């Protein structure tokens, strides 16, 4: 537990529930992490229930919303994720567990795998090679760019802006192809191991072309009243318990990349992007500028990643222990807490950003109107896949 300490009570920024524990920025506690400040369903004159989902074209994944409304306003809302997968990793070697961890959420698979491996390395007391650390940063930033492009494409699609939507889809596909070229797989499956990243970063600089094109679309969107009006004042959320772009859109300087020394982000240097209005527009702005920031990190990495440095085989000091690691996924903090014995996983707990963001979304949506819903929902970048996982 190199990066975390056990504590009786929470200290610092609260990240969220991880299994039976509660995670803060530097400590983990056994206190209950649940917050129940979602107000109970009140009675409204003339109100009725409306169901959205669980399977509907507008939703990418299966989730059901029970909405109480008096016509247009969302007075109350409940959400029920519909696809619950039991994924068993206990009793498996770390390599076998990895096959399952990378399939918890493909769009964030680099974040999941890297957090999991960092936790395993922590438990086994393995020192990571510097080149491996740099390569891991490259995967995380490529994933961030692809995700943010996707979230923005979902937002423009909701606004029926076809030209930017298709242009963004074009760029997402180009990013996937670049990832496929570097790593052989478009979602980083089968490329990450203990102290090793099996990608060839020679063509990494090509991300610059993609981001250059994105900038033009982004500038155009910033001048589009039709688009901006849908996002401003929509889903306002100022909450110290929020994470990722949702927190940064409310001016909170929360970012696991700079809070922990688990990956050498500080040496590479980058700016935390923030906005002030705490609405869907703020979340859009944060994502847009983060794409540009991530491309700067990647361009720096092209000079210092040396593909010919063969990472040495890992040397584990323990084959028994516990480890905890947190990374900044595209939608915020993502953490794994693992225990291992004789090289096998005996327990694994996950804190997924979408779980925290779903709670944030639910808080922000009350009082908004139906036409706001899709924009607000997409602006949080939530994946039901990682919420609906029971890790066993």
């Amino acid at each position, binding site marked *: 537990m190199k990066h975390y300490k056990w504590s009786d009570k929470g200290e610092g920024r609260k990240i969220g529930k991880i299994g039976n524990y509660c995670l803060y920025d530097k400590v983990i506690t056994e206190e209950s992490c649940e917050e129940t400040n979602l107000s109970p369903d009140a009675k409204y004159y003339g109100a009725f229930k409306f169901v959205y989902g669980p399977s509907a074209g507008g939703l990418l994944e299966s989730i059901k919303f029970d909405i109480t409304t008096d016509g247009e306003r969302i007075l109350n809302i409940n959400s029920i994720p*519909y696809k*619950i*997968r039991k994924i068993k990793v206990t009793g498996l070697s770390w390599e076998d567990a990895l096959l399952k961890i990378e399939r918890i959420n493909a769009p964030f698979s680099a974040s999941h795998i890297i957090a999991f491996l960092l936790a395993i390395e922590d438990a086994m007391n393995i020192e990571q090679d510097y080149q491996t650390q740099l390569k891991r940063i490259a995967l995380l930033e490529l994933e961030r760019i692809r995700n943010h492009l996707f979230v923005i494409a979902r937002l423009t699609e909701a606004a029926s802006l076809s030209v930017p939507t298709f242009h963004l*889809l*074009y760029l997402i596909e180009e990013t996937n192809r670049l990832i*496929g070229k570097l790593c052989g*797989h478009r*979602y980083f*499956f089968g490329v990450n191991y203990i102290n090793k990243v099996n990608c060839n970063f020679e063509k990494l600089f090509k991300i610059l072309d993609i981001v250059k094109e994105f900038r033009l679309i982004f500038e*155009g969107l910033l001048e589009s009243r039709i688009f901006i009006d849908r996002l401003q004042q929509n889903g306002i959320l100022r909450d110290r318990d929020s994470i990722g772009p949702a927190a940064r859109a409310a001016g909170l300087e929360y970012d696991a990349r700079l809070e922990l020394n688990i990956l050498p982000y500080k040496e590479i240097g980058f700016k935390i992007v923030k906005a002030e209005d705490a609405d869907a527009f703020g979340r859009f702005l944060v994502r847009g500028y983060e794409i540009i920031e991530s491309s700067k990190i990647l361009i720096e990495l092209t000079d210092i990643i040396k593909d010919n440095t063969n990472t040495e085989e890992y040397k584990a000091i323990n084959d028994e222990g516990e480890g905890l690691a947190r990374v900044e996924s595209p939608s915020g903090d993502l953490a794994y807490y693992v225990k291992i014995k004789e090289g096998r996983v005996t327990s694994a707990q996950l804190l997924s950003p979408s779980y925290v963001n779903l709670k944030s979304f639910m808080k922000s949506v009350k009082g908004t109107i139906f036409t706001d819903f899709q924009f607000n929902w997409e602006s949080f970048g939530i994946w039901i896949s990682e919420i609906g996982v029971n890790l066993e």
Partner: protein
Amino acid sequence: MKNWWFLRGVRKGILTEKTPKDIAEWSTEIEGKGVVNCPTKAIENGKWIAERCIFCRRCYPNYKPNLNYEISIIKGTQKLFKKSFFIYPIDAGSCGGCNMEIKLISSPQYDMTRFGIFFTNTPRHADAIIVMGTLTEKMKEVIKEAYNAMPEPKLVVLLGTCAISGGILGEAIPLEASVLIPGCPPNPYTILDALIKVKGGKK
């Protein structure tokens, strides 16, 4: 002028591809020899079984991908949908990878609509449901309802290893399918190729 999306679109020109470009290796057919420790038994007696492969690379270098993306398994076609084919994707319990790749066949590079393939927002207007992910408890009923809501004739497409065989994560989708699209996730080229074939169209 910056907001003139139409002009911006025209200026970008045509991006649609006639021939496949930059296919990621680990989504294509796998060939090789020798004994390997495949976690899903996708290699049996030296033969590769696409329906089970999760593209994990454990068989590498004995077995290698050969860049052939036309790996779908067509079990029946429906020529009635040659000109227009409406598809309704439904997620039984996926990791999101199959969802992303099906979405990307609408990107300009693939442009599914030029083949008369369209997404619909309701199974009532669908010619096919495309089921992805493993079968999860709550979604059993939802899939049944979506299937029953489709007008005849109707097709079932199973997208990705999870839906076809369960992969390493769970149960397969127990529906008789017209086409199986292997991959974890399948490449957009594979998906498009399969959909064109199943609707009895030409590339």
